[in-house]
């Protein structure tokens, strides 16, 4: 009888713990998410946002969605900095390598279209240039944009060579070094 009673209490205690755990977990997540959220997930969130500031940055053009999303990240992170009174404006969170790769591959889809479609190449060049020149943008994204900008200018020198040389002026030292890599892999 005592054993049965003890088992019942233990089971009840266990059930209470199980019921409490999920909420405790989600509460923990919520407290971590705003600071730790990677840039890419911030982009996704903001695309569905009603904030007009963000909306104005998000382009309707689906083909350049990934770049637009990158723009949005910057806006959102700046806004976060602006409303914060207790802490200084923070730099955008550093995305993981996998997130950067996914972002770059999505950009690659648009690049492939730009390479095959003259009209799209102009839009793409402008988007890439904006991305490179955006000082608030995460550095690795700016570097990837710069590499693709260079690629477009080499593919269509008549269209973009001149624009590219002026765009180059905004590249910082690390991006220049990155683009200057040559003969390293075979």
């Amino acid at each position: 009888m005592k054993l049965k009673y003890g088992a019942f209490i233990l089971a009840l205690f266990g059930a209470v713990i199980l019921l409490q755990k999920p909420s405790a977990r989600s509460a923990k997540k919520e407290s971590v998410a705003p600071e730790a959220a990677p840039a890419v997930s911030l982009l996704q969130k903001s695309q569905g946002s009603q904030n007009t500031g963000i909306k104005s940055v998000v382009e309707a053009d689906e083909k350049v969605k990934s770049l637009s999303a990158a723009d949005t990240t910057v806006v959102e992170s700046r806004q976060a900095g602006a409303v914060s009174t207790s802490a200084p404006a923070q730099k955008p969170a550093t995305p993981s390598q996998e997130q950067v790769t996914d972002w770059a591959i999505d950009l690659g889809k648009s690049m492939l279209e730009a390479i095959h479609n003259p009209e799209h190449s102009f839009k793409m060049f402008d988007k890439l240039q904006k991305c490179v020149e955006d000082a608030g943008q995460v550095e690795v994204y700016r570097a990837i944009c710069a590499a693709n900008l260079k690629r477009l200018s080499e593919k269509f020198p008549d269209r973009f060579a001149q624009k590219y040389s002026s765009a180059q002026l905004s590249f910082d030292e690390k991006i220049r070094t990155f683009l200057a890599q040559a003969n390293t892999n075979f």
Partner: protein
Amino acid sequence: MFKASVIFASAALCLFSLNPAQAAGKKANSSKLCSTQWSQFQTKLQDGDNRLAFQNPAGPLGIGLCWWHSRMQRNANYLLDFKPSEKRASDAEVWTLIKGLTKSNAVQVVKGYKNLQDFSSVYSDKMAETLGQWQLAESFLQMGFLHGIGSNDVSSSSLQKTMDALYAEVKVKKNVPFQMLKMGGVATHAWLVTDMTKNRGGGYTLQIIDSNVPWSLQTYEYVPGMTQFSYNLMSSSNYNFVPYTQHESDLSSYQSALKRYCK
């Protein structure tokens, strides 16, 4: 003590010879991929039908994509399940699939194509673009990484140890190792090792897939006493380098992904 080691080693070998579904103790998925024994992934890759239809492209930086070509090749070998009789995927689905080939953690189904050669000959431009963007993403984040990765000329005993370890990877664990080939400066190449044979006097013959010539298997002979490899990677001249096995964790990711998929 010795007996215990032998038993342990035998048990490990037994585990490696099981297919992933059997290892998981569950009823196997009937797909061809799930009936592939772990050791058969080596022979699978030796068949040209299971290799990429295009060679290492120049890429956006114009410096070649050998690392990423080799990694995508290996990911595809372990993680693509071809269903030729099913309806082909849309372009958007194909992009998602190709993006997934930059990861080592999930099996993907390729509908309407019979093998990698077949699929990659149709989508070579999308795959090459993906390799290029993958390179950009990783190269910037790892800038300077190559400077400290190792020498292109080591002691003969060190290279012998490297080769002995590689032999265990290939012949005992039945893995397909990815090797970064460190040349002078920051120049590198990469290859996949699909087989190895032991030669007299402690040497080995390596069977490799070089992304520059993916349509054929290459061999390279290691002779004890060597301090570096000398191999004709491109066309005219030989390059000197030391091989370093990398991305080992991808192999356990493949095993986990196969176990999940082949339930």
